[in-house]
């Protein structure tokens, strides 16, 4: 039983890490290797707000997420748009965006190193235990799980129940047809990229309450996010959430029942199985 709860909590964390990238990669078609740096930057911001102005990190999201939205919009506008415009096909854009965001990753890392140095950061917020069915769980993790649920639900409602959301989904399915039905593809992509960045930043603010972080560790988060995004089916929010939960549960079960040394092996076995049986991802559509 505690495996189920621990796994779900962990899955919630993973969902937070991956949701932003789902949008950035699924809609804007940018495989953002700087995703993890974005997240760590938000960790630092939350830490800074908390330690200098004692702003509660959960409320801090109100400041951090819009900030990240603007920052990512600017990144898209200045750095990604030229690539999108010159790319002749999706493959070309993929290669270019990998290269460009790889550079971006270094830049963000460099800036964080300059400002915060290379050391470890951590602070205490909501780290008191809560009891569920006789087991203790960190309150901050439960908060993160709830936030993940709220964010995922909000995103789902936005994408599937609103007009603009439908437009964004249309872009993610086929940008050229979307532009035929009078959707401003460029704007929708920029919006999706910025929203994705904002979500990642919100995730960072929440994660900072229970992870110890430093300037160089963004890549760990990027890797996790990429795996989840691909497993869930590129650009599909439901798939990403499901994949994240699945991953959280598998890792916890393997670590508790078999050996913590084999969690990654389990992750990749799962990944291969998903790909072999549903190469388009859990919810992905077969490509035409």
């Amino acid at each position, binding site marked *: 039983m505690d495996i189920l709860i621990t796994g779900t909590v962990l899955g919630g964390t993973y969902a937070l890490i991956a949701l932003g990238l789902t949008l950035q990669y699924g809609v804007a078609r940018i495989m953002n290797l700087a995703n993890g740096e974005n997240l760590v930057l938000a960790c630092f911001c939350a830490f800074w707000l908390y330690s200098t102005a004692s702003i509660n990190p959960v409320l801090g999201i109100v400041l951090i997420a819009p900030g990240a939205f603007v920052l990512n919009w600017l990144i898209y506008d200045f750095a990604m748009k030229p690539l999108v415009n010159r790319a002749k096909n999706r493959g070309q854009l993929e290669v270019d965006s990998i290269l460009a965001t790889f550079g971006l990753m270094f830049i963000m890392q460099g800036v964080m190193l300059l400002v915060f140095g290379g050391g470890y950061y951590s602070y205490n917020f909501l780290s008191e235990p809560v009891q569920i069915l006789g087991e203790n769980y960190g309150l901050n993790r439960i908060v993160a799980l709830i936030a993940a649920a709220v964010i995922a639900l909000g995103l789902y409602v936005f994408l599937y129940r609103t007009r603009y959301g439908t437009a964004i989904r249309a872009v993610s399915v086929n940008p050229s047809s979307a532009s035929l039905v009078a959707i401003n593809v460029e704007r929708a992509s920029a919006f999706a990229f910025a929203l994705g960045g904002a979500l990642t930043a919100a995730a960072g603010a929440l994660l900072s309450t229970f992870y110890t972080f430093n300037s160089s560790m963004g890549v760990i988060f990027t890797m996790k996010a990429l795996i989840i995004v691909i497993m869930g089916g590129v650009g599909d929010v439901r798939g990403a959430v499901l994949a994240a939960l699945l991953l959280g549960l598998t890792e916890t079960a393997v670590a*508790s029942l078999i050996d913590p040394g084999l969690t990654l092996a389990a992750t990749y076995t799962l990944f291969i199985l998903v790909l072999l049986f549903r190469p388009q991802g859990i919810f992905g559509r077969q490509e035409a």
Partner: protein
Amino acid sequence: MERRTLMKTFAATLLAGAVLAGPAVAEGTIKIGASAPKTGPLAGGSAVTYWPAIQLWVHDVNERGGIDVGGTKMKVELIEYDDRTSNEEAIKNIQRLATVDKVDFIIPPYGTGINLATAPLIAKYGYPHIAVTAVTDGVDEFADRWPNSFWTLGTSTAFATTLVDLLKGMRDAGQINDKVAVVNVADAFGIELANAGKPALKDAGFDIVYETSYPLQQQDFAPIISSAKNANPDTFIAFSYPGDTFGLTKQAAIADLPVKAYYVGVATAFPAFAAANGPAANGVLGAGGVNAASDKYQDFMKRQIEVTGSAPDFWASPVQYASLEVLEQAITSAGTLDKAAVIDAIKNGTFDTIMGEWKFDHNVIRKYWTVGQWQDGVFHGVASTGVGGEVAPIVKSGWN
């Protein structure tokens, strides 16, 4: 055709680089090179332990007017490179320091692996290699292989066995029972310690009720802590690395792991550990330790914060600084910058350092701190291989 022009450009770039890279050096300065991570997985550790201690030492020496070399005071100029936690970069950096910058001395890199990877080169160029951040059982073998190398921080076996002795003392005093949970990170340091620690625990009559290893960069420890909790030990030992040291402890606090002795590995001695865990840190045992109450350490801590803005750890930071004091005193007693003479001086000399009096025994420091414990916001050394000044360990009582 292309290739030839390319080679020309290549050569030209190299030449330009070489000319520009050599900074203008005033006559009569000692050039000292350092290469260690500023980025990459080990950067978090070197930012605490390595760079600030070096910065402070250079500042101190130059404030004194320099190092006394045969009667003249020579100031120190530091050349630093980032090895990005990569062996290739580290090797190239050492080569650059030795053959392009032509530094007088090299401060060896950070981390066991990179120290060993660069040791053959440092030996080839005849520099003294005073390794600090390298804990391994091979110290005697390495000292034989590279007679220019000196080892200061201890061996994995000693770290594990002194911990077991400490626990044995606590058990014999009736403070803990004989049930122990042992986990370790699946990486060099963690495995060496676990391999030495587990048999020692069994020999001492402890009962290992839970054991496992987990991979590097693991972020979530709920399964491990809850399995350990279910085994109901009085003692929890984790031979861990920085990230996991923090992660395990946070999880242990949340799960309210009811142990009376709690040990975590590298980074327990970092000031960030106390900051991250607040009152929960009290009573936590960890790798390292120092004579924290001593005037020398207190003074070192105060000055490092003043000069570099970052607090030292309670383990390798002062040793890093001490290794540089050794270098300085060896240069002075040799009275020359000749590397072989300085190596000789290190081998045979006695040094007055912030870690106390140091004398190398077959190139190895045999008395070092191994276990420390957070007691009221200070990480006191509680076990060593005979340094003296150990504080009595306290029983961990809860996480609040």
